[in-house]
């Protein structure tokens, strides 16, 4: 028996909106759950004072610094490398076996569990290169971890720039680099920024790769050669070792708010940029 298309349509709307609502509900539940437990602990004093007694008491200031320093270093390294690679792959090479292998490689790299990157970073940066547990080792490891994401999203953003823009630019006597700089990058920027934001998000929330490479020292780092602990790692240790559930959730709440702020800034930047251009 054929079901009338109108009822199929109702069914489709119900399933699709149901899925959307469920996603939203899960998100709201997690955020509310963490904030409800964490907000009572969270205060300016909590953010800006040093932890006492392994984090049982006191604040999380060193981990705040670690959470800023590691992703910042990772992004500073991975963004130029990633954008450069994607420009090279899309604009300077023709599609052939080599580019396909590179693309396949980056896709695989993007799917590797972060702990593998952690292990690699531990062996290569910490041990072989003798950087020890440090912000530098951790930042480099995180950079490698987020590099594939940045490459692939930038590549898609660059490919989305209409071919006619390139034609026009070349026909007006532009070199390839002038075309990249003046037409392609400005138009691909929102998409590239999305990739960078994904990278920041991943590196802020990373634990496994960070414990292996940046260590988990609670002291305030004074240089990139010092070991540090990020908020995510702090949360993991506080909760895992049963040191302090309250402070664990306080840290988690701070982490969620930090990610939220980063994303809001990115959206704001993107809209500002798009508005400026049209």
């Amino acid at each position, binding site marked *: 028996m054929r079901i009338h298309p109108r009822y199929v349509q109702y069914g489709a709307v119900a399933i699709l909106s149901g899925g959307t609502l469920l996603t939203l509900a899960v998100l709201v539940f997690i955020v509310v759950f963490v904030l409800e437990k964490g907000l009572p602990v969270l205060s300016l004093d909590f953010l800006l004072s040093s932890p006492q007694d392994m984090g049982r008491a006191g604040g999380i200031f060193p981990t705040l610094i670690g959470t800023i320093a590691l992703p910042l270093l990772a992004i500073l390294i991975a963004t130029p490398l990633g954008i450069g690679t994607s420009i090279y792959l899309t604009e300077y090479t023709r599609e052939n076996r080599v580019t396909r292998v590179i693309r396949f490689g980056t896709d695989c790299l993007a799917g590797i569990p972060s702990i593998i990157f952690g292990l690699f970073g531990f062996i290569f940066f910490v041990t072989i290169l003798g950087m020890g547990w440090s912000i530098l080792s951790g930042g480099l490891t995180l950079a490698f971890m987020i590099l594939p994401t940045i490459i692939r999203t930038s590549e898609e953003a660059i490919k989305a720039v209409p071919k006619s823009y390139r034609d*026009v630019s070349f*026909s*007006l*006597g532009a*070199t390839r680099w002038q075309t990249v700089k003046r037409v392609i990058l*400005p138009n691909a920027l929102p998409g590239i920024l999305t990739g960078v934001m994904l990278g920041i998000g991943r590196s802020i929330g990373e634990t496994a790769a960070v414990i292996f490479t940046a260590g988990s020292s609670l002291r305030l780092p004074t240089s990139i050669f010092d070991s540090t602990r990020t908020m995510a790692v702090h949360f993991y240790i506080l909760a895992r070792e049963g040191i302090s559930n309250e402070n664990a959730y306080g840290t988690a709440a701070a982490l969620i708010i930090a990610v939220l702020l980063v994303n809001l800034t990115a959206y704001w930047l993107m809209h500002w940029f798009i508005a400026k251009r*049209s």
Partner: protein
Amino acid sequence: MTAKFDIRDLSVSFHGKPVIRHISLQVAANGILGIIGPASSGKTTFLRVLNRMNELEQGSSVTGQVLMDGNDIYRSEVDAVALRKSVGMVFALPVPLPMSIHDNVVYGPTLAGISDRGRLTELTEKSLKAAFLWEEVKDRLNTSGLRLSGGQQQRLCLARVLAMEPGVILLDEPCSGLDPISTAKIEDALTELKRQYTIVLVTNNTKQAARISDETAFFLMGELIEMGPTNQMFTAPRQKRTNDYITGRFG
């Protein structure tokens, strides 16, 4: 009249598939050469040979000679980027770059290294006037080129080419998406411009070729069937196929 381009036995193929076969012709300086012919007759490819844009496509190969002012533009020491500065091109669809009207016009000159503001302002006004667009946009040079109507966008594209002060302007069906009034404005501009420039105009509109070109060439399946003064081509073509095409019997 002197020849701006002297094309000798030109053949072009993509991935081994011939698109243009053994074409020889001369393009007179300071005139409009109209190229007519049905779809896939090699008109656009021919145009893109003249500024070496065809090189950007994968698998293209060119044989024969293309002399511009007596020099072969396909010699290895000729820089295609420099060549394109003197051979401008307007595409079928108007493509303003997503930037302001002013920035669109000065795109070429700034690439070439001109940075003096006064000079750029002067170039903008001059080019927009020559493209018959100045009066419509002079108060809003800083708005995006994308905000203009289709006809205005195409004239902006023309102005953008003029700002480079090229010797040659190639137009690839520049009016195919435009209304009759916009088309008339472009045609007026071209008629005016041919005094200073050599113009090659590919068009699907045979009447347009009849209206504004000095000479007309008829392409079919990658071959040059006939070329001659426009009057003669449209009143007394030598070839039957030309006659069939311009009277609308095929194509």
